[in-house]
């Protein structure tokens, strides 16, 4: 195991070839996350406005997992989320942005974490989600009709949090997901599309949320997922591709949902995630030495949590919410004990 960026990422290589993971720089990550908001006016900030509400979910969740979040700004955060809502119950990515299922889910997740679900009309949100279901059971992302199994998961998760799964045709939703089950055991975005770690997370999540995991062979899928681990310890999303920290969530949570997290070499993956940190400025990147971003910071923290890394609060692999929040909401566990 040769860490090519040993200097920057803080890994310690020993003469006998063994390696300590880099220290987890919790405080620096916190500063990095809080700093995101102060970047108003920068090009990156403006260009990412359309997904601001998802950015909030990633930042808030990462801080919760690191057990490092203050609640002094909660009112401001809640008000912002509510200001993104439309008449039809949907949420846009930011103020005055059109509603979309992705951002509706992020909004509901953020409000769940901040214990403010009572501030929205759950029926109205559920009606919006239900309106996106297609005759074949699939879900569009918005009224313009892009179909993707990501949206099947978003719909089910949103409705599970709001306890309104009965608003949609659940069996039809499941059948569409099953149609996306591929010859290699994985799932793609639509029937026939290539198996991909992110899509698998969404499909397995959808099956977990509907108690339909028995429809798939967990050993076959578990092997495909375990095969994502590369020699450096990191996980890729498809055969013969490079590892990326975000798969520490997509692939790992999928394994957790089918009770096979232990098929991954835990220590090797922990070392990889730790190596993806920016030791100087905080945040986690996709790969060692690359620039950190809030998206990968969340997924790195979530991955470490699933691996039982010290000091991390537990995250629910199906709901992608802190277990504490899930328990508060009274939602039962839908995956085997990790």
């Amino acid at each position, binding site marked *: 195991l040769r860490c090519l960026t040993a200097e920057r990422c803080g890994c310690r290589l020993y003469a006998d070839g063994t390696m300590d993971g880099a220290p987890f720089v919790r405080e620096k990550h916190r500063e990095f996350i809080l700093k995101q908001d102060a970047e108003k006016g920068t090009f990156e900030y403006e*260009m990412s*406005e*359309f*997904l601001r509400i998802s950015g909030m979910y990633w930042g808030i969740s990462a801080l919760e997992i690191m057990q490092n979040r203050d609640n002094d700004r909660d009112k401001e955060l809640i008000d912002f989320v509510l200001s993104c809502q439309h008449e039809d119950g949907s949420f*846009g*990515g930011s103020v005055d*942005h*059109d509603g*979309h299922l992705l951002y509706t889910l992020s909004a509901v997740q953020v409000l769940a974490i901040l214990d403010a679900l009572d501030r929205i009309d759950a029926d109205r949100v559920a009606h919006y989600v239900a309106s996106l279901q297609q005759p074949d059971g699939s879900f569009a*992302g*918005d009224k*313009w009709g*892009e179909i993707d199994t990501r949206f099947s998961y978003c719909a089910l998760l949103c409705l599970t949090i709001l306890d309104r799964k009965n608003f949609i045709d659940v069996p039809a939703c499941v059948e569409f997901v099953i149609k996306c089950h*591929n*010859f*290699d055991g994985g799932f*793609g*975005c*639509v029937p*026939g*599309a*290539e*198996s*991909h770690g992110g899509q698998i997370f969404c499909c397995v999540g959808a099956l977990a949320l509907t108690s339909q995991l028995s429809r798939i062979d967990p*050993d076959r899928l*578990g*092997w*495909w997922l*375990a*095969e994502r*681990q590369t*020699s450096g*310890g990191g996980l890729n999303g*498809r*055969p*013969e*591709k490079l590892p990326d920290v975000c798969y520490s969530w997509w692939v790992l949570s999928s394994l957790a949902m089918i009770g*096979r997290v*232990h*098929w991954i*070499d835990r220590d*090797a993956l922990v070392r990889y995630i730790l190596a993806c940190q920016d030791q100087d400025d905080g945040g986690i990147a996709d790969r060692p030495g690359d620039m950190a971003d809030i998206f990968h910071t969340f997924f790195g923290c979530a991955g470490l949590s699933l691996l039982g890394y010290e000091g991390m609060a537990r995250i629910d692999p199906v709901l992608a919410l802190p277990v504490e929040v899930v328990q508060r909401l009274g939602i039962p566990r839908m995956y085997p004990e990790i």
Partner: protein
Amino acid sequence: ALPISANYTAWHYLRRCIKDTGVDVRQELQYVEKLALKNPKNYQVWFHRRRLVELLGDATQEKEFTAACIEADSKNYHAWSHRQWAVRTFGLWDGELAYTQDLLRQDPRNNSAWNHRFFVLTASEGKLSESDIESEVEFAFSHIRRAPNNESPWNYVQGVALRGERGLETLRSAVEALAEKFPACRFAQALLGEILSKEDSDESMARAQELFLNLATKTDTIREKYWRFCAHKLGERGKE
């Protein structure tokens, strides 16, 4: 170059403008082509393109267009997904097998191309003909012989064989030979182990166990827990 917006709202307004003002859709297609090549991972560009093609009812440019994107980034998920959509929606199956063949000759590790080949092959419902299976299996093995530690053709060959009457058994002798020729190849050992574990004889089960333990301790130690699970599962079956 400025990164393109991923803002769903902005794209929606653009499409409304196109519809309402009677802009030349073909010109718009050309513009989108440039955008997609510069921003190949942007969901909205691809969806926009799809809407335009639907508006026109003409997908004749889509193969060339996706081929250009794939040339730049051979595993671009959106490009492949779009190509599948165009092929399936407009019945453009001709030439697709040859296309994947070319790409795989250039890069046998292109999992997207393997997936597309499987998609085209299995487009019609039901089992594949035995001769189709035979030729596809040989196609996969020819690439495996060139680069045995490439995961994709191993998944492909299993997928194809499972569509036939005899299942994985069709592959047995070829996989035995490959396991012997490439003793460090974990995929050969894994598949041989799987095939043997499905046979009813004590000898096959014992050999399969040996293979799994070899994978756990030598050839694929990062997945040690998985291989020990496989060995254990076999052991449990043996007791029954």
